């Protein structure tokens, strides 16, 4: 099989074309939002947020049945936003440490979701789709939802860009500028939540974290300014989405896993080859007090 055939063959299938479009869009979106996740050290929160959506999906699944995917999107979106606001609240006011509180919510919600899905007979395939995505099942309507909500997230990031950067870099200073740091914290959580729901069909809740942090971290290793980190991260995310689906098609690997593996491979390459981040950084940064 020539390289051209290798590249062209999947495109003969409309479901592959839709899948590639979805994976590319999700790869780009996750990297932009994921840049904030990486820089603010919110990886655990992002993972918890993704897993906590499961009961919302399960409720939509139990009530609407497996026929209508569109209903699941709205159930997922509603749950995600509620969970994001709830976690924002818990992480500030909890009686236990922040990560402990998030962990309890995470585990409890995830278990609740699995319990609810398990009540529906013959649901194991659907559960697998929720957990690991079903990018080849993306419909034209799904693509529209991805474009609309993904585009919306990017517009909000662009509108609040300078404030989001300031509260992430130096929250104390941002507070002296009278920026409502609490509002921006919740805003970032909600942006992550919407991103997770938009990306759900591609990689599922189980591997969502990888899409949020891996391409963005790869870009972090090789860039020095946030706009280029986001742009390059988006490129890496698109490459991982498309490359992963090709691997999935030709090697018969689960699509979500293939996408994540390609993005992790990209990260490892950057980690080895990155010109400055590794050694120089360590030498310069050492806190001299």
């Amino acid at each position: 099989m020539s390289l051209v055939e290798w590249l062209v063959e999947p495109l003969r299938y409309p479901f592959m074309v839709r899948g590639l479009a979805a994976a590319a869009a999700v790869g780009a979106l996750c990297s932009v939002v994921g840049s904030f996740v990486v820089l603010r050290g919110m990886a655990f929160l992002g993972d918890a947020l993704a897993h906590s959506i499961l009961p919302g999906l399960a409720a939509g699944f139990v009530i609407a049945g497996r026929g209508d995917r569109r209903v699941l999107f709205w159930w997922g979106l509603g749950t995600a936003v509620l969970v994001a606001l709830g976690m924002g609240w818990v992480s500030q006011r909890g009686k236990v440490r922040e990560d402990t509180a998030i962990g309890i919510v995470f585990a409890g919600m995830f278990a609740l979701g699995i319990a609810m899905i398990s009540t529906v007979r013959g649901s194991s395939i659907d559960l697998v789709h929720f957990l690991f995505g079903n990018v080849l099942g993306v419909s034209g309507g799904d693509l529209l939802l991805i474009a609309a909500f993904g585009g919306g997230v990017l517009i909000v990031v662009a509108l609040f860009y300078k404030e989001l950067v300031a509260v992430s870099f130096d929250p104390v200073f941002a507070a002296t500028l009278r920026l409502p740091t609490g509002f921006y914290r919740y805003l970032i959580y909600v942006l992550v939540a919407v991103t997770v729901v938009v990306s759900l069909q591609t990689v599922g809740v189980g591997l969502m974290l990888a899409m949020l942090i891996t391409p963005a971290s790869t870009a972090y290793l090789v860039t020095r300014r946030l706009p280029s980190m986001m742009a390059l991260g988006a490129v890496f995310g698109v490459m991982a989405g498309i490359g992963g689906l090709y691997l999935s098609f030709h090697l018969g690997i689960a699509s979500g896993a293939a996408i994540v593996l390609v993005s992790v491979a990209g990260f490892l390459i950057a980690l080895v080859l990155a010109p400055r981040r590794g050694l120089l950084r360590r030498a310069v940064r050492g806190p001299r007090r």
Partner: protein
Amino acid sequence: MSPRPWRRFAGHRAPVVHRPDAAAISVENVSVVYGGRPALAGISFVLEAGEYLAVVGPNGAGKSTLLKALAGLLPTSSGTIAIHGHEPGGHVCIAYVPQRSEIDWRFPVAVADVVMMGRIGRIGPFRRAGTSDWDIVRRALSAVQLDGLAGRQVGELSGGQQQRMFIARALAQESDLLLFDEPLAGLDIASRDEVLALIGALRERAVTVVVALHDLAVAASAFDRVLLLHRTQIGFGSAERVFDEPLLRSAYGSCLRTIERDGRTVFIHDAGCDGGDHEPR
């Protein structure tokens, strides 16, 4: 600043107008509870516009807490703080610089980006920085001699350059009050002198400056007033008055060492003596 309601929603509130007859900082019997325990009590002083105040005291004395309270970041549990006649919340003229250790220096922002953050309050929401803002940033950078490093990632700067960058941010912010937490910590002598000279140069702009310090000699030589803290206010006034052995002893306890030199008593305090560093975050 536009009165349009969505601006308010996004958090850019119109700044308060300074009262011309009020002192720059007026603190009356202030206590602050931090992390559930009293961090400061009985703080009272007045600072006129353009005066320089050094806040000194052993580690954990409450210096950072006081600066945060002055910036309106921590609520007072009793007493009042007035900045130019108004409570600290509501000003956009307060420039606060945290300790260097509180910043993630790997964050992918360039020096000019950080200085531009000083303009955010003036630019307002949903707007991008204009040419005039970039001009201000350029001038601020050249005032602290960082012109050539504007495009560098912040972690590539030396400690002294990082502090100069924050001074440039305060300049870009057009602040009237600079609150600087331990700007000299960890700097070598040359960078220390540069930073001090730049802080001194703010006198031309009639900026009121409050700096938390460890070095008593610097506090005495470069500042109009000193505030000696150890959870409570031990002394406030000129360095000659406050740096008096009984007062210093009550702040530093056994950490205070003295040597006799040319017939004068020189006070030395051991900055590492008091164990635990500052307030827990």
